[in-house]
């Protein structure tokens, strides 16, 4: 996959997160590329199976595209965190710097970054959520303790997971993974958020306020910081895609 495809995937990931389609104009503006070239590229990415594109309506990511895009977004945002937290590079520069560096980032380095930054939840510049990794670790503690660097032994997570913070009101989902140290993990599990638990999002307070969820017959409010670390198996709203 070349760098330009990766850039498109990342842009589409951000633009379509709310379930809407990204138009050629949106992409052209975001990537600073002429609309005609964008259309061309989208068609090609459609052939490769990353994008569902219909002219005049816009593009969304396919499941395969979504996974790839999530991974790119993750590498990009982890890199931003590293540049900001460790190298103390200003917020105005981290995005472009990370853009230039993310394409060569291996999975090993991605994991090492996440581990040494203590599983960060958000990127520094625009507070976008950092997606969870796609390795089959059951907890961040396990990843931190596991000495081997051979990620192939660990394997890839089979399910497609997104955070509770990215769900919409009235959506239902199943708890899959909780990011963070053992303390926060235990606290949430004791409240009933064990893997496999069905939850429903009742309300989302505006401006990244808390999320109210129902589970096990009661209601719990989770602050945005917490909701970003609770990952659920969820089908993306793909019914809106008309190929």
């Amino acid at each position: 996959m070349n760098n330009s495809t990766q850039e498109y995937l990342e842009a589409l990931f951000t633009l379509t997160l709310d379930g809407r389609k990204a138009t050629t104009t949106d992409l052209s503006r975001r990537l600073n590329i002429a609309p005609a070239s964008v259309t061309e590229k989208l068609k090609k990415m459609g052939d490769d199976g990353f994008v569902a594109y219909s002219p005049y309506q816009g593009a969304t990511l396919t499941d395969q595209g979504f996974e790839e895009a999530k991974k790119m977004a993750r590498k990009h945002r982890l890199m931003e965190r590293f540049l900001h937290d460790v190298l103390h590079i200003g917020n105005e520069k981290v995005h472009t710097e990370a853009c230039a560096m993310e394409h060569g980032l291996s999975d090993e380095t991605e994991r090492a970054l996440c581990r040494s930054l203590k599983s960060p939840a958000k990127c520094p510049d625009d507070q976008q959520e950092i997606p969870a990794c796609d390795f089959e670790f059951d907890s961040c503690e396990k990843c931190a303790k596991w000495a081997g660097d051979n990620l192939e032994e660990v394997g890839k997570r089979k399910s497609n997971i997104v955070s509770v913070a990215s769900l919409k009101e009235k959506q239902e989902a199943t708890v899959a993974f909780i990011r963070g140290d053992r303390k926060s993990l235990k606290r949430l599990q004791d409240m009933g958020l064990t893997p496999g638990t069905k939850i429903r999002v009742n309300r989302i307070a505006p401006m990244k306020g808390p999320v109210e969820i129902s589970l096990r017959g009661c209601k719990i409010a989770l602050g945005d910081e917490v909701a970003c670390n609770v990952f659920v198996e969820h089908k993306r709203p793909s019914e809106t895609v008309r190929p």
Partner: protein
Amino acid sequence: LNPELTPSTLSSEPAKSSHSRTITIALAGNANVGKSAIFNQLTGLEQETGNWSGKTVALKEGKLAHHGLDIRIVDLPGVYSFSSYSPDELMTRQFILSDRPDIIINVLDATSMERNLYLTLLLKELEIPCVVALNYADVARKKHLHLDLEKLGQILGFPVINTVAIKGIGVHELTDAAIDIIQSKVHIELPVIQYGPEVEERVKRLSQALTDSGIQTPVRWTALKLLEKDLEISAEVKNQSPAAAVLADSYTAELAAMHKEDSATVIASERYAAAAKIARQISTQLEPAKKVNTLLDDITLHPVLGYIAFLITMAAVLVFISFFGSWMTTQISHFFEIFNPHATGIIGTILWNGSVVGFYAALSVALGFILPFYFILAWLAESGYLPRIAFMLDRPFHIFGLHGQASLPLIMAMGCNVPACLACRILENRRDRLIATFLSTLVPCSARSSVVLGLVGAFIGWQWAIGLLIFQFLLIFIIGIILNKLNPNKSPGIIMEIPEYRNPSLKIVWRQAWFRFKDFLTLGIPLIVIGSTVIETLSAVHWLQHITEILSPITVWWLGLPAFTGVLLIIGILRKEANLALLIALAGGAAVTSIMSPLQMVVFSIVIMLYIPCISTIAVLIRETGLKITAAMVLAEVILAILFGGLAFRLLPVFTNLR
């Protein structure tokens, strides 16, 4: 995953002669299930209750005399588990393990069995006999939810009793059942709730390794905690029985590999699965449950309407108390003035102006301002509105690096600062607790609001009073921002249960309000009567001016207040409600306008709102934050009071028509 019944025996300690020892009964349960209400019913002590988590932030004890027995009742904090990560949970667990209460009354919310049974299973693992109280039985009935008590009793091996704590229903039966178990000399059968075979097999082998290893804690519980990788227990076992620790390490790895989940997660999942299964076995939905009316939530949690509802509620409370308070003050004054003998001479003046007016002024402040404040706040706490406020204010509170739960102490502080400072313990780290505590002491409590509402509100206009309170809240906001700038922090994020709205029982609300108010009658009124009499005496023998002269550079020169306010400010350190009462007394029953100009009233109110926490609050602050930080907070508030009082005295006449 099936909880199966395997009987094991557990003997309750044989009871000695019933008068020879004190029996300890502990109350345990999730937050918000009505433990405090049961505690109140049992002990007659009026502990604060309320419909929000984190209220019982320390162990509370009471005594109960039951059929000639001396019973100590301990109310444990509302917890969801016994992990070693939260101070509340650790404290609860240590109390149960080291104090070994004779029996635990486990209080459950009957409408939310699955979540509540999780803690019951944890209590069973601790091997302490329990009596289970299914509270809110009336709400469950209304929801057409039938719970099979007998079956639940069989599964758990504990007596199960329906209760409606706020009405006292089932509370006596609870005590009787508890005493019966303690006094019965026979062994009682306690079935063990079994988890999955992979877990049980390892628990069994670990238990064998742990037996006779000198570990003090119950064996099965210790084995499960080892598999959960509990920090404390793992460290202890490593010391006492290294072999068991090694075994535990290999078992946790095996479990993780088998389930593709961390072993602690595996145990939590199994426990919840067992709880869910029990809940299913015993509950029958008789008729389809009526759809819960979410209209109130749709308004109070609405992105726009929610904030409007909050502001209207707060403003309505303040405006109502402002009007009610001045009405009450006039009524009481009219009533007492009927008996005014208009005596002349020193003794007559001292007795009437000092003692009698002091008494009825104190009564006016108490009945007009303080009691309604406590009543309304207790009503709000019981209704379940407070967690909604925390939900709505979560985002705004991030400006201070805090999360929404920090708003709860601040709202409680409008009644009294003392419980507010204690409630700050619900916050996760020390930095958050310190900021919330300092902000809480800046919130005008009912006694301080009484000065603003009863003085400025009554004699200048309620708009001015509300304006002053808005100024105070703006100041709190700015100080919060400054404190966060000095010591920035990212909030760990709110995790809070949102209980259903409940229609508060007026009896409970009344008892809550009365509980706080009693203190005022026994301490406040005598102090004000004495203070008022002393001031009148000093004034009659012309000594008052000598005392007030010492403070006059600040009071008269800088703040532009009448010299006598110096004495009020000193007495006000003891009890803030004395300020308004003594002013009314000093005016000799006439309108306070005869001794203070409107400008002086505003300046005086600003000083009172800020200048120093009362002596009870200072005592709590020392206990919660230490001497140094308390001194810094008090000093900061004195400086703020003098600064803003003086500025108001100089600037208000320039910009307004206040003179």
